């Protein structure tokens, strides 16, 4: 078994990859008492501090830490997530590297073109994402392995916390506000859903706004300004708090995303018991085991609105179903993938093919 590993990524912010590091770290350190994990970022934009703080708060700081100097020789395996630059700067890492692709943005994974015939293994975070990457890079066919992302068990919510007593049904959009995550379709769906309800449906939006994205114009065009509360991005350690508070308000999670590698926010919502309505892209389909009631055809605004209304109508039943489905991406699922991958010859997985 592995004793010392490193997760390396280009940016330290407070995004999805950093959350994956923390989730994995907590699960692996609980499972393997001798394991030590270090995290390295090329550029620290503040996320390093957040990880250190989180690690300390969970009592893990002696075994899960952020390092500022990268020394590949210290590790048995270096997990390189969408950061090929690291191999240019540190060629020695090539022998023990396990490259992972997590980015849902197609243009940001074009780097794999240079690696598809050289890598021994590429790791992706969901079985739904595997065929997407495989179709883009046929040279990786048969080399792609899945280590499923997961959502850790949610800590209990403080009883005194609650959200405002909004009157209408509440829909949550929890993603970057840009074209890939398809905020436009969410707003159009919200507007169209209005006719299904007697009271005006409300939306809670949390996410980074792409600079220049015409949010207000979009809201006004769809006549929903006044029904949408746009929050700053919620710090990742509190996303589960928001989800659990929204469960108390019987909110529905909606993701019209055009691209996901796993769908971590949707998975978190399902774990918290929020019914989800998701676009029918492969990673979403995988999350909900292809159950139609949770999916709508991407681009079909009327279909989205109808599914949103149905989720409110059958809330309790869909909530229970989501919690059941969420077991598929529990920590046990991740650990099972991990053990399957690393129980054999690690060297057969890592590094590049010698030409």
């Amino acid at each position, binding site marked *: 078994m592995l004793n010392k590993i490193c997760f390396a990524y280009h940016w330290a912010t407070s995004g999805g990859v950093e959350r994956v590091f923390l989730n994995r770290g907590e699960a692996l350190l609980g499972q393997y008492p001798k394991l030590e994990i270090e995290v390295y970022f090329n550029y620290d934009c*503040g996320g390093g501090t957040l990880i250190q703080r989180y690690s300390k708060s969970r009592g893990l700081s002696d075994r899960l830490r952020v*390092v500022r100097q990268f020394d590949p020789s210290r590790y048995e395996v270096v997990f390189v997530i969408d950061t090929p630059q690291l191999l240019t700067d540190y060629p020695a890492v090539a022998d023990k590297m396990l490259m992972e692709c997590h980015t849902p943005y197609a243009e940001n994974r074009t780097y794999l073109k240079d690696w598809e015939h050289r890598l021994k293994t590429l790791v992706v975070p969901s079985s739904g994402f595997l065929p997407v990457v495989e179709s883009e890079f046929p040279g990786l066919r048969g080399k792609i392995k899945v280590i499923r992302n997961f959502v850790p068990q949610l800590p209990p919510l403080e009883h005194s916390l609650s959200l405002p007593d909004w*009157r209408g049904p509440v829909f949550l959009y929890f993603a970057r506000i840009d074209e890939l995550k398809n905020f436009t379709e969410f707003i159009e769906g919200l507007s169209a859903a209005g006719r299904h309800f007697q009271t005006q449906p409300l939306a809670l939006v949390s996410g*980074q706004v792409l600079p220049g994205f015409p949010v207000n114009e979009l809201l006004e065009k769809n006549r929903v300004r006044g029904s949408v509360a*746009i929050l700053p991005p919620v710090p990742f350690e509190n996303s589960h708090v928001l989800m659990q508070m929204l469960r108390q308000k019987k909110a529905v999670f909606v993701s019209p995303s055009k691209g996901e590698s796993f769908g971590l926010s949707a998975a978190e919502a399902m774990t918290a018991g929020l019914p989800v309505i998701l676009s029918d892209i492969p990673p979403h389909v995988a999350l909900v085991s292809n159950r139609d009631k949770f999916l709508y055809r991407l681009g079909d605004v009327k279909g989205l609105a109808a599914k949103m209304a149905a989720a409110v109508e059958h809330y309790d039943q869909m909530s229970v179903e989501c919690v059941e489905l969420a077991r598929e991406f529990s920590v046990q699922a991740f650990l099972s993938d991990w053990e399957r991958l690393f129980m054999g010859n690690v060297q057969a997985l890592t590094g590049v093919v010698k030409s």
Partner: protein
Amino acid sequence: MSDLRDGVGISFATWQDRQLAAILNEIRSAHAAVDGHKEKVVQELGKLVTLLSEFTRREDELRADTRLWQDKAADLDRQLKEQTALRADLQIAQQRLEAEVARLRQLEKNYAEENQTLSSRASAANFEATNLRRLVTELHNSLSWKITAPLRMITKPIFERLHPTQPNVVTSPTVGTSPTAPPAPPKPTGTIDVFPTPSQTTSGPVDAILPELRHATSIAIIPCAIPFSSTLNQRPISCARYLADHGTTVLYVAWQWLPEEEVPQAWKEVYPRVFHIPLYGFQGNVEAIAAASYGKGAYLSTLPSPGLVDVVRPLRAAGYHIHYDIMDDWEGFHKGGEAPWFSAPVEHEMVILADTVTAVSDRLAEKFSHLRTDIAVVRNGYQPAALASEQFVAAHAPLSEKKTIGYFGHFSDAWFDWDTVLYAAGKRPDVEFELIGWGISEPTRMRIEKLPNIKPIGIVPQAELHKYARNWWGGMIPFQPTDVSAAVDPLKVYEYLHLGLPSIVTGISGIAKYPLVDYAENRDRFVDAIDRITSRPNAQLLAEVERFLKDCTWDERFAKLKAMLEAPAGLAFLYAKR
């Protein structure tokens, strides 16, 4: 001459001699006795003198001892005073040291939080940078960009001539690379801090208040349509005063129509812990203000203008509690040609964005109940001390000979019901209407001049109102029956009640059930209500008013508001600094 005495048969002379001799003997014996006594007395005196001299000596010795001990006591006292002073100095020094330690700890904590805030902002900036890079990548990968490449190649020299490369341009820190177009940062040298030296980049008057914010344990930002004045009783001003009096540092944001519009005492401390901030200065520096807010922050929005709703996002990200206080029917004002900035969807956005919402009247709470059901009604109030008179001063004064109905406040044609007042004055020429305040328009002035029983007084300081009001039989609040009126909670009704005056009200149904209020639905009912006032309120009524007014002071009102701001709120919790 001879005589016989006692039958002894001796002569009188002989008897006289014998008697004399006997007396002399007695005198001699007495002298002898006196001499003996005298000698004894002298002896005793000698002893006494000796004793006295002994006592004198001892007294001198005791005096000397006393002086000695007094000197010693004085010396000890001086030493004690010196030691006490020394101890006091030491205590002061210790307190100073403790305060300095606490300050440094707070500073350390503040810097840690500032670091965290700046890190978050850096993170956000990075997201934006990543997104921009993605856009550039998309552009570079687009067909149109590739098709137009030859054209750019041809035109490049022209653009280079038009925009020559500037030498020695200091570039901003590179925040990263696109996977497809990586720049060449100096590597490998370990992690690069994208924002390695966080610092405040603001400049200008806001810098003067940032240190105050950094040291504040509690901060409130309160926008208001009028500049701050410690003598005014308006709700946001009273709220600012109340919170400042309870230890909160208040940024009082004064409305401006244009950035160049002057705000009196801008950026200055206009009341202990209340800082006067021009609107545009606030909106332009909200990021810096948010970043410097280490204490628990609250944003008390009273004006739902788009700009003042936009600031919610950075304040929310900095952990501020967002509160919307609905103090007027802005939509009604807007329809009446006022509040041109108003937009109903933006106000709705504010209602749903806020952690907590209050309204001054049931009507306003009801107006937004389709959005949320937890809007608390916190009515307006008054400050008894500002009226400078004891409670019920008018009720305790005898009724004046002439029935007088009074009013104080603003006379806006937009809401003051002149028609009703003029109608009543015409119907009851024997009743006088005393009008105190400002804002009577010229056309209205011409109308009221025709009625001799309407007496405009002009502006009277609040502390002197009681001098007029004690002669009134009642107060009036004649407002037009509009949406704006229906939603208001007039300050003056509390002041009329404090003075002990019955009040005749039109247009404001929300206060119809207040004690001593007679709500008139039309002008005839208004006249009837005037007729019904025939005496001062009795003791039972005044007792009821006294009980009612206990909850109506600003202190009572804002205590409720403060409790709402301090209670745990779900949205605020997500961003709270811990």
